[in-house]
Structures are given as structure tokens and as C-alpha cells.
């Protein structure tokens, strides 16, 4: 079993380099003087401008008419990621609880209505969705950004699967003790679902943060720009100038990646568990 381990390591190191090199190059180059980048291309080693570049990008508006900077776009992305994750978890837990723990007429109809949404990504119905949101007057608002994205039952499906793995005896015991449905949910189901909620929260936060197509259609008002979509406008502004401030562009890219990457690294265990267990 020991033999050839070094070959395995070589392959893994090549794989790891393939993953890291792009991010490293962008980071190292962001700390250089823009003229170095223009004359010599991307840099492999970090330069000395780290603090000045990042504070400037954080506070200064680049390529926008109003006062939009990395800080305000990151706040918008946070609202988007958190709103999407929290909204989705609340709505889908309620629906999954109703589907699994209640006897009601048309149960299978409700089930199919909800789960057919898994089949069609937003991209397929994007233009009509846009019109619905426009006619409801929700363009340029966070509810318009978030609600249509929640209209897919992924999390409901995960929670339904999870609730079904919880032993039925718990409910029987609760009913013997005269605990009503709300009591059962709050005292028994919610504590049992903690890990599952954390895992889905992490995945959904990343999904919400990384949205691109929907925000570029929905927002004409710059103050609602999220960082993932806002970079593009900054970029086109930067590339049109004669002395492109590549350092600013690179720093923005780092800002756009950093929060979701940190979340994934810090909560790696939960995140992997969530991904893998929801496959079933």
C-alpha cells in the first residue's frame, strides 16, 4: 500500500496548484503598482501596495456615477446572501413540516406542485419572471432580487428528506405527552435539525452571494449593485481608461470572492455534510 505514494502526492499537488494559481496571481498582482502590471503583466510575487490599494477600493467609487464602492456592494451582497438563505430556510422548513407531519387533503398535489419547480432553473423562464417582478413594482428592491430566487424547492426537498429520516417514535411520544404540532416542532424537530439547517444555510448563502444573471436584469439603480455584478461595470470603466488601474480591478475580485470562500473554509465540515447528504 505504501508504494507509489509520492506519485499520488505529485498528482494532488498539481491539482491543488491548478486550483490556487489563478487566485494567487490575482492577489499578488493586486498589490503592485498598476504600471508594473501594464508593462510586465501579472505578477507572481506580492508587491508593497496591499494596504493602500485595498483601503482605496473599499472606500472609493470606481466607475459609478453615485457613491457606490466595494463596501456598499459587499453590504448588498450580504443582504442578498443572508436574505436568500434565511428566507429559503424558513419557507421551506414550514412547507416540509406540513408535508411530512400532517394528514391533509390533496397532499400529493401540493407535493408535486412544489417539486416540479426543481426541474426548471430560473434561466429558462427569465424574461417572463422579469416582467412579473416589473409589474409588481419590485425592480430595484431587495424583495425583487430575493423572492423569485426562492421560488425553487431545493431546500424544501432537502428538509423533507431529512424529516423522513427522523424516527416516528418521537412524534408518537410527543403525542402521548399531549404536545401539539407547534410544540413538537419547536422542542423536538428544530433542535434535531440544527446541523441540517447550518449546512443548507452555508450552501444557500454561497448560492445567493454568487447570483449574477438575475441581479444584472433586475437592478438599474446602482445603489442595489451586488459585488459580483458590480465588478463588471467597474471593469469596463477601467479598461476604457488609458492608464487602466488593474490593481483596483484585482482587489475588487478578491473582495468578491473572500466572504464565500471564508464561509466555506470555516464551516467546511457542515458544508460537505450538507452537500453529500442531500444527494439522497
Amino acid at each position, binding site marked *: 500500500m505504501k508504494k507509489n505514494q509520492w506519485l499520488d502526492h505529485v498528482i494532488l499537488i498539481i491539482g491543488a496548484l491548478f*486550483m490556487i494559481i489563478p487566485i494567487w496571481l490575482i492577489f499578488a498582482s493586486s498589490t503592485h503598482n498598476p504600471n508594473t502590471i501594464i508593462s510586465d503583466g501579472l505578477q507572481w510575487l506580492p508587491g508593497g501596495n496591499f494596504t493602500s490599494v485595498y483601503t482605496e477600493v473599499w472606500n472609493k467609487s470606481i466607475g459609478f456615477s453615485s457613491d457606490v464602492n466595494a463596501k456598499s456592494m459587499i453590504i448588498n451582497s450580504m443582504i442578498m446572501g443572508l436574505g436568500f438563505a434565511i428566507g429559503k430556510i424558513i419557507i421551506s422548513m414550514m412547507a416540509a413540516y406540513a408535508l411530512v407531519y400532517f394528514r391533509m387533503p390533496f397532499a400529493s398535489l401540493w407535493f408535486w406542485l412544489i417539486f416540479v419547480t426543481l426541474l426548471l432553473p430560473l434561466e429558462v423562464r427569465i424574461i417572463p419572471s422579469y416582467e412579473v417582478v416589473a409589474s409588481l413594482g419590485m425592480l430595484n428592491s431587495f424583495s425583487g432580487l430575493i423572492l423569485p430566487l426562492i*421560488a425553487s*424547492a431545493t431546500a424544501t426537498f432537502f428538509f423533507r428528506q431529512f424529516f423522513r429520516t427522523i424516527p416516528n417514535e418521537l412524534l408518537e411520544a410527543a403525542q402521548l405527552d399531549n404536545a401539539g404540532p407547534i410544540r413538537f416542532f419547536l422542542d423536538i424537530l428544530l433542535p434535531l435539525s440544527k446541523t441540517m439547517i447550518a449546512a443548507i444555510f452555508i450552501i444557500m448563502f454561497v448560492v445567493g452571494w454568487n447570483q449574477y444573471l438575475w441581479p444584472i436584469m433586475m437592478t438599474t439603480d446602482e445603489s442595489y449593485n451586488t459585488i459580483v455584478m458590480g465588478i463588471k461595470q467597474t471593469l469596463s470603466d477601467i479598461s476604457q481608461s488609458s492608464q487602466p488601474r488593474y490593481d483596483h480591478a484585482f482587489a475588487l475580485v478578491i473582495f468578491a470572492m473572500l466572504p464565500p470562500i471564508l464561509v466555506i473554509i470555516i464551516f467546511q465540515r457542515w458544508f460537505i455534510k450538507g452537500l453529500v447528504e442531500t444527494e439522497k
Partner: protein
Amino acid sequence: MEQRQQYTHSALPYFLLVPQIAIIAIFFFYPAAEAVYLSFMLEDPWGQSSLFVGLENYTILFNSTEYLKSVVFTLGFALVVSFLSLSIALLLAVKANNILHGKGAYKITLTWVYAVAPAVAGIMGGFMFNPHIGVFTEIFASLGWDFSLYTDPFDATFVLVLVSVWKQVSVNFIYFLAGLQSISYAVNEAAMLDCESDRRRFWTITFPLLAPTGFFLLVINLTYAFFETFGVIDTLTSGGPGGGTTSLVYKIYRDGFIGTDLGGSAAQSVVLLVLVLALTWVQFKFVEKRVHY
């Protein structure tokens, strides 16, 4: 299926279901129906009047060389991206499962790219292969490849594939590694005794056991290549050069949102819808089969 103990309550379950049902009715069923309806209509660009034209939008669509080119590009792109990201991830997962030391470090470095948005990945790719500052353009030039992201359709597709694969390897890696770790120790032990060659052991024991995971991932990867690569395409090539990298989703967006050809765009949505349904049907077929063994 066992009959679960359930509450009987008249109002509460509906109260719990209402938010979900309301949201999917407004933001899912209505727009989906609207897409089907619009695909049979011809609307003037200002949305003032519309005319029922039957299948005309579809006829125009299937006679358009531009659309067929986009179909061919999307299918080819999806297959190449899925194949490459699945095989690279499988190789890395097998190696990571094999080694004794440093597992954790590899696992972290190979999974964190999951968090990078496709659009951001596209922007980074654009810098790497930029004609002026891109290091890889330089490296290719020194190898005699006159690389040009913005004028050569092949080079543009190459970068799109590379960036899309880069972004997707981590998800596949996570699933494959979990799949490998769930293969029981006893099975591995027995295989080890029976079969000396690593390679044969992999193809006869490990690979078939991973097949269900692999198939599930294939569907995930195709869906990713169809839909989520919008961000990569928009930031890297904007569908160019010469429309050579326009995927189906990108075309729906461009025709409907920028070109305001609502009927044509809706017809494209419906075609895509049929494609996704077919893919799901295949998946269900497979899931049924999986139950049998």
C-alpha cells in the same frame, strides 16, 4: 412506504404551506406559463400589441443557422466541460483517498473554489488570458501559439472550457471523495487480496461502485454547463467572437432582454425546457434502475 404517524389539524398545515405555494405560483408557474404563451405570439417591440402566430416562432428558430450553431456549441461545450471536470475530480479524489498524510490540506485546497462565483471565475480567466497582461498568453506565445481570446473562436472556447472546468472540479471532488469513503473497508480488503494491480482494482471494483454517484454528478454537471456558465460567458466573451460562444441561455437573454424579441426568446425557453425535462426523465429512469440492485 411505511405509514407515518401524522397530525390532523384543519388550518395549520395550510398556513405553513401558503408562503411556499404563493411564491412558486407568482414566480414560477405564472412565468413558466407565460413563456409557453409568449412562444406562440408575435409581440411588437414596445409591448403594445401581440398577435397569435402559432408555431411561427419555432419554425423561424429551427431554420435559423445562428440558433443551430448555438445548439451545437452548447451541447459540445456541456459534454466537454462535464467530461473533463468529472475525470479530473475522480482522479484527484482517488488519489486523495489513497494517501495517508496531508489529506486535510488537500481537501481544503481542492474544495474552496466551490465558493467562487462563475462570473468572478470568468473575470479572473479574462485576466489570465488577457492579450496585454495575461501570463498565459505570454507562455502560449513563447510556445508558438498565437493566442487571441477576443478574435479567435477556438481560443475563446478553450478559455471558457478551462474556466468552467476549474470552477466545477471541486463539487465533483467532494461527491467522489464521499463516495469512495463509503465503500466499505471489507470490500477494499477483499479486492486487495484478489487483485494486485491498482489499475485493475480501480476499474473492476471501485469504478462500478462509484457509478451511481458518477451518474448523479453527470446530470448536475450538464445542468451546470447549460445554465450556470452564463456568468462565465458573459464576463469572458459576451458570446463572441462572431457569436461563436453563444450558449442557449446566453441567447435567450440576449434576444429577449437586449434584442426584445420576446416571442423568439420565449420559444427558445420552451425548447430548453423540453431539453431539461428530457434530462430529468433520464435521471428518473436511472434512479428506478438503481433501486433494483
